[in-house]
């Protein structure tokens, strides 16, 4: 699709990086040019890109990836509470913890394939979610969510509500109120947080691209196309699968850590099956097995969630003010079904339409457009497989 040569890969990456970094300006006209939403684009994009390394290449559909995202968030917040509010150690630690967690779950789940694998991952994620909400409250703070708190004055009796931040204290950092995560002094909320996440996204895209192009990636694709044949050639696919599973778990952990960096609160609902389902939808919507698709799918869903849900009657009336009164009310009435509290309906219809008409997701749509364009161009109509 986006070229097979190294040079084309670099061009693709450069365009991607330029687009991601310029989103604050380029996406402003469609109302998406504010930090929180763009942060979510970058973070969930990363999550979906990582998920796609497993699902897109090997065809193994994990229904429990949100667990790794949640674990990453919890790990990062614990680093903020115990060591330092600097984002770097938190991110590293979270990725490692998520990787370990993924290795454990993957080792067990990969003993089965197909829907049995999906249900195993789902079961592990749901167990993590249910326990995080109840029995594991001393670790997760249950429904309220784990937060960064004030420094403890005197002996610590309760690590959920009293923080120590050993490293920061050792370095002699003075704190006023509850500190925010930072990168060597730059606070990670707002735009700096977006640029931090964006750099991670570009790095994540680069790594994903390398994996897609590597012999490891070829091996994963071979697993997807015919595992039996692979077995006959004397290759044991399990280690490759486990590696892919752990890598994509680490992507999820990184996404979870970034969520905690831009907003230091980790809640259990991040691990619920609906969150796992969301990343599946993002990936399919964008285009399974493509590099760019998962990012586009993630951005589209987050855009719908944040922008459609915020449109209320007042805005609709303002939009359709140019229509005559009676017609205006009718149009607002109908449009009102799909926005505001009805934005789920739009989402549902969107899923159906895209799957029915564009089975390859948004990327297939683009490809068809491109092909149409080329054919119009006429001179050298290519035939593609």
């Amino acid at each position, binding site marked *: 699709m986006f070229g097979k040569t190294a040079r084309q890969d670099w061009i693709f990456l450069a365009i991607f990086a330029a687009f991601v970094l*310029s989103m*604050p*300006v380029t996406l402003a006209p469609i*109302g998406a*040019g*504010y*930090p*929180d*939403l763009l942060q*979510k684009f970058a973070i969930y994009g990363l999550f979906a890109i990582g998920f796609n390394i497993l699902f897109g290449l090997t065809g193994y559909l994990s229904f429990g990836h949100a667990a790794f995202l949640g674990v990453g968030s919890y790990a990062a917040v614990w680093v903020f509470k115990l060591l330092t509010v600097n984002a770097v150690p938190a991110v590293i630690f979270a990725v490692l913890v998520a990787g370990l967690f993924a290795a454990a779950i993957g080792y067990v789940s990969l003993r089965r394939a197909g829907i049995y694998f999906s249900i195993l991952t789902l079961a592990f994620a749901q167990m993590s979610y*249910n326990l995080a*909400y*109840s029995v594991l409250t001393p670790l997760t703070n*249950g*429904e*309220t*969510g784990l*937060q960064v708190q*004030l420094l403890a004055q005197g002996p610590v009796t309760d690590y959920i*509500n009293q923080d120590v931040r050993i490293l920061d204290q050792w370095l002699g950092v003075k704190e*006023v*109120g*509850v500190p*925010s995560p930072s990168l060597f002094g*730059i*606070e990670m*909320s*707002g*735009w*700096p947080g977006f*640029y931090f996440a964006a750099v991670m996204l570009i790095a994540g895209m680069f790594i994903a691209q390398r994996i897609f192009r590597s012999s490891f990636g070829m091996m994963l694709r071979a697993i997807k196309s015919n595992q039996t044949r692979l077995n006959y050639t004397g290759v044991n696919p399990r280690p490759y699968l486990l590696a892919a599973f752990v890598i994509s778990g680490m992507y999820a952990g990184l996404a979870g850590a970034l*969520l905690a960096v831009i*907003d230091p*609160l980790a*809640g259990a*609902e*991040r691990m619920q099956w609906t969150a796992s389902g969301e990343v599946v939808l993002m990936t399919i919507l964008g285009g399974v097995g493509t590099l760019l698709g998962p990012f586009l799918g993630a951005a589209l869903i987050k855009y719908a*969630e*944040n922008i459609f*849900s*915020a449109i*209320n009657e007042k805005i609709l009336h303002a939009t359709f003010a140019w229509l005559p009164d009676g017609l205006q009310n009718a149009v607002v009435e109908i449009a009102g079904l799909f926005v*505001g*509290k009805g*934005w*789920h309906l739009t989402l549902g219809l969107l899923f159906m339409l895209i799957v029915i008409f564009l089975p390859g997701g948004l990327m297939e749509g683009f490809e068809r457009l491109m092909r149409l364009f080329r054919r119009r161009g006429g001179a050298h109509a290519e035939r593609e497989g």
Partner: protein
Amino acid sequence: MRNDKLIINRRQLIRGAAGGAALSVPILHFVREAYAEQYCNMPTGKEVVLGFNVPQTGAYADEGADELRAFKLAVKHLNGEGDGGMLNTFKPSALKGNGVLGKKVAFVTGDTQTKSDAARASAKRMIEKDKAIMISGGSSSGVAIAVQSLCQDMGVIFMAGLTHSNDTTGKDKRKHGFRHFFNTEMTGAALAPVLAKEYGTDRKAYHLTADYTWGWSQEGSIKKYTEALGWKTVKAVRTPLGAGDFSQYLTPVLNSGADVLVLNHYGKDMVNSLTQAVQFGMRDKQVNGKQFQIVVPLFSRLMAQGAGEAIKGIYGSTNWNWQMTDEASKAFVKSFGKEYGFPPSQAAQTCYVQTILYANACEMAGTFAPAGVIKALEGFKFDGLGNGPTEYRAADHQCFKDVLVVKGKEKPASKYDLLEVVDITPRSKVEYEAKMLGGDLGPVNMKPC
């Protein structure tokens, strides 16, 4: 923070200039504004924007819809439209009926989905994109606490909607957060004496508790106050959130020797557990020579509607009910009913009141700056908003007022006539030391965002 902003803006500026003059004009404008801004989202135009963050999808969508109705009504009244509602009864009032501090009140809305993540995302959108200076709403304590700490970090005011856990103004309280709704502590203090009067002091209670923060808070408060009056707690069992079918938790109650069942559930869990408990014939049972009873410490009219027949005769507490006969409540019901054709819920009342109180505090302070608004709200004493004389306690930003003990009505006259007020517990009986619940308000946050 100011410096980072500058760097980013300069970068944007350069990019914008390259992109063309058309793009750079608004960015220049933005930079100028950022320089002048003394606190987060300082209103500079003719309008002031409030952000209403309510559950529009999910289990609490109906409650959220009612909250949104109340917010819209409050904005109308603040802008001097409509019949003025409780603005006419509220005293001492600094409001002039021409918006707030001469600026017209505008609002934006968001969907919390009753999830902390989604709620914080939509609050952030309202603050970052729509420049909201105050956020209000909520229908769950977890969400309220999450949004409250976000507002603290970003430097805007949070006027909590429906949230009942002690923690909101207890261990998770914040300088920028204010709660008008009551909490489990007050429920315990108000409900226990009524229960003792109705059911006697020699009772054995069995608790079923939703296994999360609010449930534990509620269970603790009810235990504390009923045991002080002589009740015994046989057992307290935690149930998973959203269990749907509670039969496996209800059956052990039958043989436990308990003669009261306390359901520390809210929302759909409460509707399900109560309906099923009644189905198990618990209310027809005789235990220890006494009639078996069920208690639901917190309920609302909307939930009573969901529980149908099962709620009749059940005791609980509520923040406000539309059948209150004071002038303020009557004015509010009239104005809400005229607008929407049915009476408001307790969630609607608390959201309406919070919006009015915020606007009034701005007028009192003469500024939208958080420092001034917080100072005006702290220790503010008022009346005429439906709950009688009320005080915003400075030490924890919790409103102290009378608490209503209610009972599901046996013979409702209409489908809205579901609760019957059995006791109005005076404020003095439900008051406690702010220190008791722990937590720390922290500093005022005046940094620009």
